């Protein structure tokens, strides 16, 4: 009797487990298929977009008038962005598939810049035309390779989830058609070389000294770097401090030292990066908890100015200030003869309890600051003001140097104006009167947690 009951219970148990297992299995498969389909869609969509891209770029080659060229290039721009978004959905981050996306963004840049230009006044020059031709050829190559992979995927019913698994288990070397095929695509694209094919008008990053090459001063040693860091930390070398300094790794584009100063008494740590060339502070963070506000933002501003003066950052002007809880953040830009130089920006973070500087970043400043010759405006401010939309009520005006859409530094008249409750910052080119940039400035945002 008891035996029978036990047997019955066991049977029910086994049956139940089997049923549950089957359900789980079904669910798992459903989810896998779902994920697989997402990948499949992204992939096939990508190859479709590249097809389309190739055709579109091809047809622009034959066009001559602005009326057809501008819309066609805009279309190219749109397609590249779709293709980029497809690439972003594929599980390829750990595969070297970056070049393909870079290639797409190169086409995007090129088509955008040429599409927005007044092609009637300034038609495509020979160099741009040949760029377009080479982009066409490259798009064709990629299209061919992608189609090959696509064909294999369809023929052999290859699954992206297997790629995912291969990546997850680290068995990338296993024979996998998708990975191999895409690696070939990637290789093709990297063969096209870097930006040298893109003509010299596209120099957005060359304007900036990304690698701190043009900084004045001589190369410093590790010891000097530590000395400089200590000056920032205001710490006497005595006392309970632990100092560490490391050189940059081999992969860095520029030389720097990372110095950390750990004060064992207050248990606060200062971290700082300095350029090897000249020993300039790129950034420093001296983080600690700040639990109360004792000083106001204006006092914080004074502290920041003192700090900047102490460390030889001169002719800076406050651009923005903001308070985040108990921290004040002040953004300075350099100013020359009344012209604000926006690319030269320095940020200072002040703890509002004792006014100490807990963060500092001169990254942007060091990359873009140089001796400039700022010319005088060719058009009077009155003329610039007339270029502005009449609905804008102009409140403030000044002069500023900004980097425009094409990556060039341009001297502008800067206007702050309002339409109803919104504030806008408008830059009018001081030489051509062109509207270079219009920004809507952000208002504070409500915390949504309290709205529901």
């Amino acid at each position, binding site marked *: 009797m008891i035996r029978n009951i036990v047997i019955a219970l066991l049977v029910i148990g086994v049956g139940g487990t089997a049923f549950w297992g089957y359900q789980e299995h079904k669910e798992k498969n459903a989810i896998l298929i779902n994920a697989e389909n997402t*990948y499949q869609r992204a992939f096939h969509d990508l190859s479709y977009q590249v097809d389309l891209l190739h055709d579109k770029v091809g047809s622009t080659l034959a066009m001559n008038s602005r009326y057809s060229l501008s819309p066609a290039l805009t279309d190219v721009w749109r397609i590249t962005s779709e293709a*980029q978004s497809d690439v*972003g959905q*594929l*599980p*390829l*981050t*750990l*595969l070297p598939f*970056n*070049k393909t*996306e870079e290639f*797409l*963004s*190169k086409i995007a840049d090129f088509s955008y810049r040429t599409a927005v230009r007044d092609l009637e006044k300034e038609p495509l020059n020979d160099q741009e035309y040949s760029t377009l031709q080479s982009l066409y050829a490259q798009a064709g190559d990629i299209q061919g390779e992608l189609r090959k992979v696509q064909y294999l995927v369809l023929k052999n019913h290859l699954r992206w989830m297997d790629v*995912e698994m291969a*990546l*997850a288990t*680290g068995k*990338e070397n296993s024979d996998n058609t998708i990975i191999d095929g895409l690696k070939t695509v990637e290789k093709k694209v990297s063969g096209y070389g870097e930006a040298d094919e893109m003509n010299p008008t596209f120099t957005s990053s060359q304007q900036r000294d*990304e690698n701190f090459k043009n900084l004045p001063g001589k190369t410093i040693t590790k010891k000097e770097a530590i000395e400089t860091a200590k000056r920032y930390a205001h710490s006497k070398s005595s006392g309970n401090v632990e100092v560490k300094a490391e050189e*940059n*790794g081999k*992969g*860095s584009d520029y030389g720097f030292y*990372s110095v950390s100063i750990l004060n064992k008494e207050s248990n606060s*740590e200062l*971290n700082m990066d300095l350029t090897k060339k000249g020993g300039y502070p790129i*950034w420093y*963070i001296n*983080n600690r908890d700040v639990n109360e*506000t004792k*000083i*106001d*933002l*204006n006092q914080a*501003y004074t502290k920041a100015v003192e700090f900047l003066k102490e460390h030889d950052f001169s002719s800076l002007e406050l651009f*923005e*200030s*903001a*308070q*985040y809880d108990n921290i*004040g*953040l002040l953004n300075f830009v350099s100013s020359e003869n009344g012209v604000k130089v926006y690319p030269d920006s320095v940020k200072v*973070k002040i703890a509002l309890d004792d006014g100490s500087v807990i*963060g500092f*970043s001169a990254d942007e400043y060091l990359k873009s600051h140089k001796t400039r010759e700022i010319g005088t405006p060719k058009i009077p401010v009155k003329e610039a003001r007339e270029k502005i939309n009449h609905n804008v009520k102009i*409140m403030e005006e000044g002069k500023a140097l900004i980097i425009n859409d094409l990556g060039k530094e341009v001297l502008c008249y800067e206007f702050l104006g*309002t339409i109803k*409750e*919104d*504030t806008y910052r408008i830059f009018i080119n001081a030489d051509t009167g062109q509207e270079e940039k219009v920004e809507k*400035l952000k*208002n*504070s*945002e*409500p*915390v949504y947690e*309290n*709205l529901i």
Partner: protein
Amino acid sequence: MKGISSKWKWLLLFSCITIGFGIYPETRTNAFSSQIIQKGAVGDDVIELQARLQNIGYYHGKIDGVYGWGTYWALRNFQQDFGLPIDGLAGTTTKQKLANASNFNSRFVHEQINKGNEFTYYGGVDIEKQVKVKSNANESKSGGGSANTGKAPAKPGTSANLPGGYSQNDIQLMANAVYGEARGEPYTGQVAVAAVILNRVESAAFPNSISGVIFEPGAFTAVADGQIWLTPNERAKEAVVDAINGWDPSGNAEYYFNPETATSKWIWSRPQIKKIGKHIFCK
């Protein structure tokens, strides 16, 4: 006798006025703390500044305690009209003139803010009529508050300053990623992880939005194993705000990995920039 009665009359009138002041404690003496209020500031002084400016019709925005552009222009207009130097700073003289020109019922304003009511504080209108009690019903706006476009009621400090171009939700999402990826790391390491996300957004080789970068398949282990959905702490958020504001301890890195747990051999082939905590940052 007649003389006495007229004295009584005066006394009566005087006491009436005193009582009147007592009922409406529209403080003149207790106005503002000593701080110079500057654009970007937050807190009670800003609430008072906004309320006072609205009271005399300069400020039409929401009284939320964040000194933004709306407040800035209101204050400048006030300074212009009252012959003060126009600098957008509420210093001693400006605060004094403003306090003399306007009323401020601190208790009323703070009560509305604490309750999350939508309200305005215009002078010349009964203040009780300017309150819209927090509810889901879409009542018409109360008198005088026509310019109050803010949909959101705000408790003190419930509006926030935000670094340009990013919403609180973006910051939250990034904080989730940073916390999931690097919660055991030193603060600098967390800022660096946030900076890597931003560097990827900038880079041509990655998606062009924060969510695109974070959710790119295989990009972050915390996303793959679900740790991204842990609740981040304030430190992670601060790290994100720092990174957005321009701190990049990673040295322009676009990748990082933990050498102890990295599964992909490929990642070792990236040029390494530096090591922070357990993470190696690469180009």
